[in-house]
């Protein structure tokens, strides 16, 4: 038996994909606690919680966080970088961004990882920040 831990505290039982809430009265949660106490360690979430509509930021809001200079820099880079162009097109098509998706994490890492970086880490943290508002 193995489990994957989500950032919100719930876990997934890997054998059948069951989502188990962090509820002390839930028998599967109790079984997980027993498994933890052995001790065992759950697989950490890969930088994200499960894809969650409440983590989605509307594309317009995302763009409004970017200054004109930053937008120009991103688009100039995208003209030479098919991966970045593809990501921007996908963002346009969806009209939203899942801030905890691997795709968003990769994009943020790319934008801050160059030399010089397209975005500073501080700016990227602001642009990719969770709005803290559920928008189902």
């Amino acid at each position: 038996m193995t489990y994957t831990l989500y950032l919100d505290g719930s876990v997934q039982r890997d054998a059948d994909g069951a989502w188990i809430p962090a509820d002390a009265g839930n028998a599967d949660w109790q079984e997980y606690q027993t498994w933890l106490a052995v001790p065992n360690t759950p697989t950490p979430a890969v930088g994200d919680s499960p894809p969650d509509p409440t983590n989605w930021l509307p594309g317009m809001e995302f763009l409004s966080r970017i200054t004109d200079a930053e937008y120009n820099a991103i688009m100039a880079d995208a003209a030479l970088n098919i991966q970045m162009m593809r990501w921007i097109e996908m963002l346009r098509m969806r009209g939203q961004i899942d801030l905890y998706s691997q795709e968003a994490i990769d994009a943020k890492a790319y934008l801050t990882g160059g030399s010089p970086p397209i975005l500073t880490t501080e700016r990227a943290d602001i642009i990719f920040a969770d709005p803290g508002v559920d928008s189902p």
Partner: protein
Amino acid sequence: MLDNGGFEVWQRGVALTIPASVTAYTADRWYITTGTGQITTVALFNAGLTSRSRYQGLVQRNPGQTGTSTVVFAYPLTTSECVRLRGAKISLSFLANTGPDWSPTSGTITYNVYFGTGTEGKRGAGFTGETNPITGTINLPPVNSGSVAVTSSGTVATNVTQGEVRLTWTPVGPAGAADVVAFDNFQLESGLVITEFEYAPFHTMLALCQRHYCKTFQYDVPPAQNSGSRLGVLVSPFDGDITTSGVGQAWRFPSPMRIAPTIVTYNPNVANANWRNNANSGDAAATVVTAFTGENGAFIGQTVAGPEYYVIHASADASL
């Protein structure tokens, strides 16, 4: 007071193969613990042990299985059920019937009613501050039927919060073709007067059981991936507006559940847990949205992959 004491409700399926060395629920509210070499079938039998009972529950060590450790077949009580018995003398009654290859020595079945003062749940190796107001055995040779109707000599403690009605038996030798026992009409009641079994309407009993377990599948379809059944599926109406956010579907449980349940999703047409494209041409990942999931309902989210309707089944398990 036992929900499904008559083995009428089988939401998980009416013929369940239980692997060796596991603890698993079978008929609603009833679980079994098997040992090594004890693959077991727990199934509905389409006739009761009385003329007024529609079904009975069969427990069969599968033919050729050699495990001889003690089998546990039990019904854990919620705290609410325990509270209703506090301070009272209690009575237990049930019917049993054995098959031609029933193997325990003397055909012995042991029954117990346990209580404790800890958190509600299965008894495991024992409850906190355990008390045992009813204990006894019934000897049923092969192809015999019998009944148990017993009362406690003492009263149930006034502070009990956990309890279990537990049957145990110990198979002998390799299982024959019908190493089987059947049960029906379990009733646990307060007081020393053993009343006639209450044949409750099916839907009444189903609703009580759904506080512990429910599913989107039709009643007679066991929860499974690739079931081929779309009757009752959750539908994510992703209609082509791919800017729509919050794709997925809310599932309101038929009855408020005991606690926040464990959710399992099932693709109706492929062996995975994803949403299935209604055109049967692809999948989209499914996730349970924690913020919207509790005792009353769940929200099954969908990673955008449209445009199309997507369908999925799910089960919710709040069992003890």
